[in-house]
């Protein structure tokens, strides 16, 4: 593989050094964690940064721990680390489940969850998982720290709320305080690694409070608040016409190389139904 573009590579060892570089280069800089998107983008000339700042040398980014009822996932934490973490599996299992659907083993060994949400592509698998929890994105610049709720993070396709002097430290996922069942339903073209044609994240609590989020069926991943409002407090058996209408009003899929908008619309109903059933069965400990 030949990368014809020249750029400066820096691997600072402290957060402050990284933030200074970030402030100095602004939009001319790219941040490197897993690099699984970044390197391809540079190779294929989609971006041409002047500098690439590798954040893997900074200890703060490699933290994965419980903090006051939340779980902090540092920006250098890979999908494989999430999949293998007992903490993630026991407290926020849908994050592990969705991580499992990202690409292939080789990619998951390098790619990071934070890198995934920074790419902000409409199909990103991490988003529905984070959206069903109360998740904050923790960012920092030389001017200080800022907290961005996950539902304000995705601004437009491939665009996040991150300012060009900021670096994401990690995400803080609040552990739900009531018993719940979750499911991430991903539609792909085959069983191997694929970008989602559609993705649905679901969390149902014991008192029948529903959290539902979509990816790949609109410009940005988002919660389906109207669907949740309709379902809250109700027992679920199958998709009714009324529910389908609400679901369909919450999505705006396009036709692209991966699927037609008609198939995506059809399948979101199917995924919601199957996902709710799966989450309920998990809630009931089946």
């Amino acid at each position, binding site marked *: 593989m*030949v990368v014809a573009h020249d750029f400066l590579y820096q691997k600072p060892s402290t957060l402050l050094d990284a933030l200074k570089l970030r402030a100095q280069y602004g939009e001319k800089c790219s941040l490197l964690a897993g690099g699984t998107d970044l390197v391809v983008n540079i190779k294929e000339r989609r971006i041409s940064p002047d500098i690439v700042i590798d954040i893997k040398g900074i200890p703060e980014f490699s933290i994965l721990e419980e903090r006051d009822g939340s779980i902090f996932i540092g920006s250098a934490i890979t999908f494989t680390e999430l999949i293998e973490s007992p903490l993630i599996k026991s407290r926020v299992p849908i994050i592990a489940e969705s991580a499992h659907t990202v690409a292939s083993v080789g990619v998951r060994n390098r790619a990071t969850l934070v890198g995934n949400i920074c790419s902000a592509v409409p199909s990103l698998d991490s988003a529905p998982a984070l959206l069903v929890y109360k998740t904050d994105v923790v960012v920092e610049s030389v001017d200080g720290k800022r907290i961005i709720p996950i539902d304000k993070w995705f601004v437009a396709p491939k665009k996040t709320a991150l300012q060009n002097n900021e670096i994401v430290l990690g995400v803080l996922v609040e552990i739900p305080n009531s018993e719940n069942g979750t499911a991430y339903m991903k539609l792909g*073209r*085959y069983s191997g690694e694929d*970008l989602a044609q559609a993705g649905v994240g679901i969390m149902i609590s014991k008192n029948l409070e529903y959290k539902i989020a979509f990816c790949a069926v609109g410009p940005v991943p988002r919660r389906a608040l109207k669907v949740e409002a309709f379902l809250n407090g109700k027992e679920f058996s199958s998709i009714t016409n009324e529910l389908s209408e609400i679901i369909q009003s919450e999505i705006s899929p396009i036709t692209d*190389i991966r699927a*037609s908008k*008609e*198939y995506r619309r059809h399948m979101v109903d199917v995924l919601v139904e199957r996902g709710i059933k799966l989450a309920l069965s998990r809630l009931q400990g089946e």
Partner: protein
Amino acid sequence: MSKYRFVGKGVERIDGREKVSGAAIYTDDLEFGPDLLYAEIVESSEAHAKIVSIDVTEAEKVEGVVQIFTGKDFPYKFGLYMKDRYIFAQDIVRFIGEQVAAVVARDPKAAKKAAELIKIEYELLTPVFSQMDAISENPVLLHPDLGEYPHVPWFFPKENTNIAHWRKTKRGDLDGGFKDADLILEETFEVPRYAHCAIETHVVISKYDYSGRLTVWASSQSPYTQRHLFAEALAPLGIKHKDVRVIAPHVGGGFGGKAGVTMEILAAALATKMKGHPVKIRWSREQEFYNTYQRLGVVAKLKLGLKKDGSITALQHQLYWDAGAYVEYGANVVNAVGLSATGPYKIPAISIDSLCIYTNLPPGGAYRGFGYSEFLFGLESLMDQAAEKLGIDAVEFRLKNAISKGDTLAYGAHMNPNGLKQAITEVAKEIEWGKEVVSIDPEKVLCKGFSLLWKAPAMPPNASSSAFIKFNEDGSLNILVSGMDIGQGYLTVMAQIAAEILSVPPNKIRVENPDTDRNPYEWQTVASHVTWSCGNAVKKAAIHIREQIFDLMERAFKVSKDNFYLEDDGVKSHLDPSFYLAFKDFVVFGIPMDDGSFRGGPITGVGTFLPEFSSAKSDPETGQGGHPNVHYTVGAAAVLLEVDKKSGQIKVLKAVEAIDAGQAINPDLVKGQITGGLLQGLATVLYEDMRFNDKGRLLNPNFTDYKIPTTKDIPEEIVPIIIEVPQPDGPFGARGVGEQTMIPVAPMIANALYNGLGIRIKSMPITAEKVAMAILEKEKN
């Protein structure tokens, strides 16, 4: 029990340890030292345009650039069956990705940087992306000089059209056949283009030295054909065949994509301007998709006439091929189908028209199956439709109509011995045809589908093979041949054939990939013909050695040569059970005589094979009169699917395939071919989905959006069945199986979906989305 000692045995691959241990050297692994130069190819951004100007001013300033070349530097044509393309585009570009210029530099990065700085000005011409548009009234002509292109005598280009070749095969009374029919079915089927997706992309290094010798190291299926085409194209530079040497290291997958000559010609040509420096080109994955060969797309129109009892009265099969911008190889795919589009059926009245049509998409060429997968999708789908309409079971229908030994083929010759009916019966039994299957999951359906397969090698009548065998001092052997082991196990099979004749076990035989300076001629490793053709050459070379040994025995021991035979690495005698002379004791150093002199000396064997009965000479209007195909390999296959009625996702629970290998020289390798072929077939029908935009640009030249199966996508169970009805002119009765294994997959999936869900899908691929949308459509009506 096999009547052979080494043939018919699952002998360990002789290249296995080399590959598993990492010792195997591939083209990209070769080291060339500091003189090595790298070439980056500048590609056309337009599908059809005139080149107005090429500005290299900025590119030349990049540090590390040695020289920049354009079409004007190489005004030479090349091509395998039809010389319709230039090394670099001259005045016109005809597909996006076509080579327009090259930057030769000291490192790949400088080459790439400079290539990006070359400015090409185009004057746009109207492009043609559909073969049907290309043959509409007054189309844009892609090759106005078509009438002047040199081509093989069995091609029939139509001047002032976009039809590069039109193969017509007509036999019997077609109108009468349809008039007699109780049922006539007419359908159109579409198959898009596909890519080979070999894991190793094309790589080539070429060096032209100061003595005038051109050496090319290439990842190749066709070292000799490449040598021939390099020598032909570069003849104006005074290069002779003897001056060209092609060395072919191990290959990381071919599937037809590394047959003939594609990008290799670029390095060969550039090297002639860079005397003394090896020049390397390595295709990226993207280039591998759009600038090698693609499998041709086809629109197939079928009309089938039948009697109530299920017998077929007539078949009209019109095939319109999207052959791309250049058809120097692809036109022969069209030709092959034009001879064989009846499938393995007895049909008294036949009309086949197979049209090779130019479009402004990447060149079409060889791909495993060589057109047969494409036409069988329509034909085998239609056969199921016919059986259903007549109320006859699909397997019964096939048994009734299956071709037999001696039946007349579409072009008038006769069918070879074959085990087609046995294959049908065994597959039906293994898949439990007729036994209903019901899913316990109400959202899923279980269903079965059936298909036949057949394919002949598509070769010129004089495609030939040759072999050298030499004995070593210790009685071990080196076999020199020029076929390629592209994963199928060819080298091992050649060793087994020689082993059988000479009684030397395969583990004492070395067979390696070729160097055209050392190894004798082989046409190409394509057409599933090397086991048959080169196997015959190796067998002859081994017999040549055996005869020399017997002659030597007669001379040395004064006993008639008829009394000797070979066994256990040596010579034995029918007359004297105690006589045994080990090979190691004489095959190089000779046999000592009482007077101190010796008889014999180094023993080497030579074998050549050319199918002298084959001929491509026939009536251009009917295709009658020749014997273009040497034989057909036949078989049958079936699947059991589990289909998700909502998502359309298909899981293959069981796949069964029976193939008539004549004689499986190595049953394990045949089973490997069946498994691999089925998977490749499943990929083309279920996942691979090539998309072009309205400018003719390929949208998914990558594995992100062009899907080939992973280990998670393989069938739960694969049952390979080997049938052995010997091929009389094959080595120990063997015939090829490599391509045939993938051919029945698309129609059997389509047939299973119809059987389970009542949906008839007439275009490939059959993705989950397509299935789901067809189910929804059906529910709506």
